[in-house]
């Protein structure tokens, strides 16, 4: 039993000095804190609901469109969150033409560009079935090359999600799963977001300036659920709360009024 056991003498000597022990531990676990730095939204209202004040890196996050027509909004939310990351991003998605994904069309580079995500930084991986998608995601996560991995998955059992979550934790990468709305099993994901559409922010000429989404944090490990209407500024890569957030109906009414004024 002598191996792997640290020499007790120095530890005992240090035990008197708590700060020294902490320093020693920090030295022994290098870059731990730096690696796990979460991704903040920059919005106190949302960040206070999340553990450590942001979306955890090294965790699995599920993003679910609130309804069939909200797929684009869910994509937009993911793109907005990822736009601030610096390194290549990996999108794993079934090749276009596979049935469940057919109606939504495919990602448009100029549209990503308009959301502030440089399409040149995106690596698209096309797969032919779910098993390949999972394999490709895990491979990418374990390599720790991309800054984030996004995948489109229709069904996912608990064990597979645990496996993905574990891989994400080891590599310290955020992994996003875009799930179609109706099927939701229990999963190991740290957060589950439900994304709905909301009327866009318009300027005084009635032109759309910033997209707005209705975010619902449905599940959050070590955090609190909540819901907000946010708007996203693609130039500054910044989220902000859309007007009076608590009263969703008022937001809707306000948007209609401004459009009426414009038209």
């Amino acid at each position, binding site marked *: 039993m002598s191996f792997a056991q640290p020499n007790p003498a120095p530890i005992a000597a240090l035990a008197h000095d708590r700060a020294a022990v902490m320093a020693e531990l920090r030295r022994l676990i290098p*870059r731990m804190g730096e*690696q796990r*730095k979460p*991704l903040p939204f920059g919005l106190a209202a949302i960040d206070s609901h999340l553990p450590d004040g942001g979306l955890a*890196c090294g965790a699995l996050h599920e993003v679910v469109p609130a309804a069939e*027509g909200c*797929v*684009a909004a869910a*994509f*937009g*939310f993911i*793109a*907005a969150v990822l736009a601030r*990351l*610096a390194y290549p991003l990996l999108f794993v998605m079934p*090749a276009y033409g596979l049935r469940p994904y057919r*109606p*939504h*069309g495919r990602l448009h*580079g*100029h*549209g990503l*560009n*308009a*959301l*502030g995500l*440089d*399409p*040149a*930084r*995106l*690596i*698209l*991986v*096309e*797969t*032919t079935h779910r098993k*390949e998608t999972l*394999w490709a995601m895990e*491979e*990418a996560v374990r*390599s*720790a*090359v*991309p*800054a984030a991995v996004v995948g489109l998955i229709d069904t996912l059992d608990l064990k597979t999600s645990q496996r993905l979550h574990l891989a994400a934790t080891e*590599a*310290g*990468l955020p992994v996003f799963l875009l799930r179609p709305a109706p099927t939701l099993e229990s999963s190991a994901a740290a957060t589950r977001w439900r994304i709905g*559409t*909301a*009327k866009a922010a*318009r300027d005084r000429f*009635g032109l*759309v300036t910033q997209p*707005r*989404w209705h975010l619902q944090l449905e599940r959050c490990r070590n955090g609190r659920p909540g819901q907000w209407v946010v708007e996203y500024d*693609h130039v500054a890569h910044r989220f902000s709360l859309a007007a009076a957030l608590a009263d969703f109906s008022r937001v809707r009414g306000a948007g209609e009024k401004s*459009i009426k004024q*414009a038209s």
Partner: protein
Amino acid sequence: MNAAAEAAGLATGDLLADARAKAEFLQVRDADPAADDAALRRLALWATRYTPTASPLCRDLWNEDNGADGFFLDITGSAHLFGGEEKLLADLAARLQKNFGLSARLAVAATPGAAWALSRFHQTPLFVLPSGQEATALAPLPIAALRLKPETRSVLRRLGFKTVGSLLDKPRAPFAARFPTELLRRVDQALGRIDEPLVPVVAPPVYHALRYLIEPIFTHDAIIAHANRLMQTLVHVLTRDDVGARALRLCLYNVDGAVETIDIGLTLPTRNVSHVARLIELKLEALAATCDAGFGFEAIGLAVTCAEPMPARQTELTPSHPSPASGGGSGWGDGDRTERCAALIDALRQRLGPHSVRRFAPEASHLPERAEVLPPIDGEATAWPEAEQNPRPLLLLPHAEPAEDVTALVPDGPPRRFSWRGVTYDITGAQGPERIAGEWWRHREPKPTRDYYLVEDSAGHRFWLFREGLYGRETAQAQWFVHGLFA
């Protein structure tokens, strides 16, 4: 014709009725040149175990009139691996007999022409001609040994030339005047006065390593272990020449003569043994269903088919699992990241197919469906222009889908209501139009102009709609289409 037919006295060129009379139980099949070529090609592929440059005498490669019934091997520099040319010939003949049941006639000579002639017309089936003696060796052989057209041969026979020797000591000028260039070219080729390049069955590799196994191997692990060692030998050469492999080919020679080839493409030049071994492993996994080890593999070859310059770099000191970077500022060099990114792309590609890993690239076009392409990743990304002022949807439908029941207040205005895929949307706000004209320089029939609108319905869904055709000028009944969805 097989040996039994020859024993019965049959010869090529006999009439079928005569042949039937000579041999009662004759089985007749139509000649199938394409199948012959394919078989010969497989045989030549098998023969790459002796040398990388094997050239089957297929019709499409050589266009020979004299029978597509053999292959050339360029054994320059590889004969010593088998203990000399005689031993190589003996080994080749034995294996052809054992694996394929072929009794071959083989000859080694300094020129393809001389080897062709000697293999067919020399008394001994296995013959090695020392370099420089082509003229004396060829002299007693018949004119047919020169690979001439039948017409040329019959003219020469009428003129009284029976052997090659009788041609060699004659002055060249009368022949050049009397015959097409073919005759003198063939003579020169046989004697090595002009070069005759071989057309290889597979592109000859730049670097090549081959290993013969005492016992046949079956398992993936064994294949990978041997490939690993082959790559290690190649790495020395690659490092010496400051190049890295961009494409590799693994050849597995089955005991029964079949050859499995596995091609591996790489995004960046590499000399990394473990990376290559991993790619081979992925490919073998994907092939496991179709690839059959059969009696096992008796030889294994790894070839670099494409090499690119790659400056030497120190790699050993970098840790294997650097920290992932979130939000920039990682401590690792860009070169290392690019390399690991390329490794990831290679791995994904090996398993999912060569076209599965893509990237967006902009195209100079105003039509949304033509404004970008998704090429497989190769090298550096093309930079994207600044985002457009006009709105662009996040999701683009591959084909614009017609919108039905469109109501607009004025014909030229934005729609107030439309239905798409069975759902009716009431539009509360619209923005546009953005007019995009058809590309008249690409189509003879000009495509109609499109007016794009960003519309938003009462629930906040945002669509990209367009009206096709200008009223009055292009159409009387404009059609509406849904082309994209905004985030």
